[in-house]
């Protein structure tokens, strides 16, 4: 990093638009979520137009007194001495709350520029902000911007550069004279190593009894006692505790500032408030969410729906029979490659590897891109317009009823894209038990990689029939698994305790900018394509090798070339040996074939592998010749519809991919807890699969010992769900941030 670089930190409250601004000025496409807690680590990049300016996007925080890991990350960076200037991003539609942090950042003595974001929404509401007056009272330059509409941003950067040049010269607000008197006395007790511009900050922090700050400046025992005496005297005079005194003082300053700079438009109900009266309604909120998600999955993956039509075209033409364009006939991709291999004189082994292994496996995954695209277009719109933030609010009400925290729902929202960031988002949950429980359950939500499994199941179960309700059902299976697990686990000693309070600001509804919407969709779709050509490509080669090589009559080799080998040569393969050895585990679930077991195992590498392996196995076994479409051939691998559903439930709910498992290990910071999490997920998935298959068989008149086991499990689950919360479960638990801080580090 060049020494002459200018370091600019972006600080602000959660969901005030820091990452949108960061993306705009750096050209990055970091994930922007319309709910708090999306950025849990600081991110760095250089300014697009000036590479000498380095921008750091900090996690959103409400104050510089760290209660949560992300607040610690932000404060530590601000006080590290690295930033030359801080751009304090303020949600201009919510000045009062945002100024609380702004005042504290100004107190740090760092050069600050306040960026009043969402200027467009302020204008729309009719409010008027006098930036000159605010600048004077806040003691730093103030610039109105809209990161979404790209207005005022150039001026903001210019101001930041100017402010950085005036290092250490920050005017400040004043508190009540009695408090100022105490603060100045504390300032005199600070060691001389504390620079002049930071003395006020540390005086305030000591007044708030901030242990981190006291440790950082090495206050002598004698002076610490004197500081404590001053604080105690002030508390007695004000009849309040020190932290509340400072909080009250700050809000008094803010109220004075607002009086001088904000002219509010006459009060009227905004469009967002009108929509929220319905969308977040106590009774209607949940049914609306169910309806919306049902529509999303039905449009993306339902039979004859938009996304499915695209996938059908790709599978039938691009990877099927070929297609016509502008009157010209084009061969399909496998057809073209096969023609080229035959013409070049490639051997059967090479043809099999390329066509049955790589093209079939990678092609099957790529075939689902149209459905993925439609799903991500819809989900990204719901996130960007502000609806998903409401869902977290609605779900908090549901979760709280069962002793869970709405905070646990934020990681689940993130998990609809990928489980890795979903697990990372649990860092914002302060309560260790709640955090562990959320890590254990968040990957139940179907991520993008699980969509091909849902689409495959949908096709296998209903084919072209009009049964749009099937695919949303698998999404809600994930949601129900999260809620049911949460309720059951919360009633155990391992996870008992009061839920963490969940406070969030609801952003105004707005039509997302096309750029950010497209970035969201492209980020997810491109990641899917990238995985197809990397991890899936490698996996298909391994699967092809394991399926085509094996032992027949004591000799190991390429099975199709062995003399006298039966038509079903794959039964002698290495994969058949491995899959067959553990297939008995899935017998009660209705899929004890080595093929289905192999699909489940390869799914642990990456969930898309379930589809890739299915396609590869079916091609090798010529399944697609008798059944022209993959769905029907896949359905033919299972004895009953119940077994297909059980296979789907198991693969959607069992342990996630290796990447997500690795993240769980890093987040849990414990091998034991990782084993508990993965073990619980697999056991829960197995039990759900068992119940689905056995109850399906029971409905068709088949009764066995496994039916009794399934009924026993169902009874145990119902008992754990409905039994009252034990009294000890409500006992207050010590809120611990240490483990989370360890995970952050």
């Amino acid at each position, binding site marked *: 990093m060049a020494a002459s670089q200018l370091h600019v930190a972006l600080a602000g409250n959660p969901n005030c638009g820091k990452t949108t601004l960061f993306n705009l000025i750096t050209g990055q496409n970091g994930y922007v979520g319309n709910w708090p807690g999306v950025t849990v680590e600081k991110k760095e990049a250089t300014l697009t137009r000036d590479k000498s300016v380095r921008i750091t996007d900090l996690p959103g925080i409400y104050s510089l007194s760290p209660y949560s890991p992300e607040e610690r990350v932000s404060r530590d960076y601000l006080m590290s001495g690295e930033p030359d200037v801080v751009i304090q991003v303020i949600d201009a539609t919510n000045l009062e709350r945002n100024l609380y942090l702004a005042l504290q950042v100004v107190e740090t003595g760092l050069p600050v520029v306040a960026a009043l974001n969402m200027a467009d929404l302020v204008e729309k509401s009719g409010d008027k902000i006098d930036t000159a007056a605010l600048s004077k009272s806040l003691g730093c330059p103030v610039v109105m911007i809209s990161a979404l509409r790209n207005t005022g941003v150039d001026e903001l950067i210019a101001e930041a550069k100017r402010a950085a040049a005036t290092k250490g010269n920050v005017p400040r607000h004043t508190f009540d004279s009695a408090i100022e008197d105490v603060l100045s006395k504390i300032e005199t007790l600070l060691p001389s190593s504390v620079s002049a511009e930071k003395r006020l900050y540390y005086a305030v922090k000591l007044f708030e009894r901030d242990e981190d700050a006291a440790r950082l400046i090495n206050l002598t025992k004698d002076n610490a006692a004197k500081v404590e005496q001053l604080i105690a005297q002030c508390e007695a005079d004000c009849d309040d505790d020190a932290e509340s005194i400072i909080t009250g003082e700050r809000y008094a300053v803010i109220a004075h500032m607002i009086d001088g700079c904000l002219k509010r438009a006459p009060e009227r109900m905004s469009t967002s408030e009108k929509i929220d009266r319905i969308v977040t309604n106590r009774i209607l909120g949940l049914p609306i969410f169910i309806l919306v998600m049902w529509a999303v999955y039905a449009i993306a993956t339902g039979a004859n729906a938009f996304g499915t039509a695209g996938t059908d075209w790709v599978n039938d033409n691009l990877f099927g029979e070929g297609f016509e364009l502008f009157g010209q006939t084009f061969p399909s991709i496998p057809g073209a490659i096969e023609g080229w291999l035959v013409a070049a004189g490639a051997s059967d082994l090479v043809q099999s590897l390329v066509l049955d292994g790589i093209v079939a496996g990678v092609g099957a995954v790529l075939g689902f891109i149209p459905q993925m695209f439609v799903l991500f277009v819809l989900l990204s719109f719901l996130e960007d317009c502000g609806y998903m933030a409401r869902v977290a609010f609605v779900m908090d009400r549901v979760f709280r009823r069962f002793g869970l925290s709405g905070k646990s729902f934020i990681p689940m929202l993130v998990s609809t894209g990928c489980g890795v*960031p979903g697990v*990372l988002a649990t860092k914002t949950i302060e309560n260790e038990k709640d955090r562990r429980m959320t890590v254990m359950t968040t990957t139940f939500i179907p991520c993008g990689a699980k969509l091909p499994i849902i689409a495959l199941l949908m096709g296998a179960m209903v084919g072209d029939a009009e049964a749009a309700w099937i695919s949303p059902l698998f999404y809600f299976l994930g949601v129900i698994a999260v809620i049911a697990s949460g309720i059951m686990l919360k009633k155990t000693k391992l996870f008992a305790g009061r839920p963490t309070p969940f406070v969030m600001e609801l952003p105004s509804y707005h039509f997302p900018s096309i750029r950010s919407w497209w970035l969201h969709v492209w980020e997810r779709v491109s990641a899917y394509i990238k995985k197809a050509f990397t991890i899936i490509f490698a996996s298909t080669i391994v699967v092809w090798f394991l399926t085509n090589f094996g032992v027949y009559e004591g000799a190991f080799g390429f099975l199709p070339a062995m003399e006298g080998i039966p038509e079903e040569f794959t039964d002698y393969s290495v994969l058949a040996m491995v899959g067959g050895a553990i297939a008995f585990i899935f017998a009660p679930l209705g899929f004890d074939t080595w093929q289905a077991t192999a699909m489940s195992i390869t799914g642990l590498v990456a969930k898309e592998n379930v589809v890739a392996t299915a396609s590869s196995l079916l091609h090798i076994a010529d399944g697609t010749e008798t059944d022209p479409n993959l769905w029907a051939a896949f359905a033919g691998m299972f004895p009953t519809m119940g077994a297909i559903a059980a296979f789907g439930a198991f693969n959607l709910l069992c342990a996630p991919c290796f990447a997500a498992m690795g993240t769980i290990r890093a987040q849990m910071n414990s091998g034991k807890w990782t084993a508990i999490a993965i073990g619980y997920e697999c056991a829960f998935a197995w039990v759900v699969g068992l119940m689905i298959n056995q109850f399906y068989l029971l409905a068709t008149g088949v009764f066995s010992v496994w039916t009794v086991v399934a009924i026993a499990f169902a009874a145990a689950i119902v008992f754990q769900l409905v039994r009252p919360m034990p009294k000890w479960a409500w006992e207050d638990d010590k809120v611990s941030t240490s483990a989370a801080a360890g995970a952050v580090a």
Partner: protein
Amino acid sequence: MSLIDIVILAVIAVAFVAVCIRIKRKGSCADCAQGGACGGHCSSAQRKSCPACKGVDQVAEELGRGVK
């Protein structure tokens, strides 16, 4: 085995090794940039900061402990 077979197999082998090295360096996930924890451009130096890679390494170490 003909020359074309050797050429095709060599190309596939190189691609396979390249993908394996990429996975070793960057992990198998492609989209954790969403979480704000990874810039999406991991280098081997940054690998230490990738929670997925770090966790996978820890799991591998734990499972491999005592294995000769």
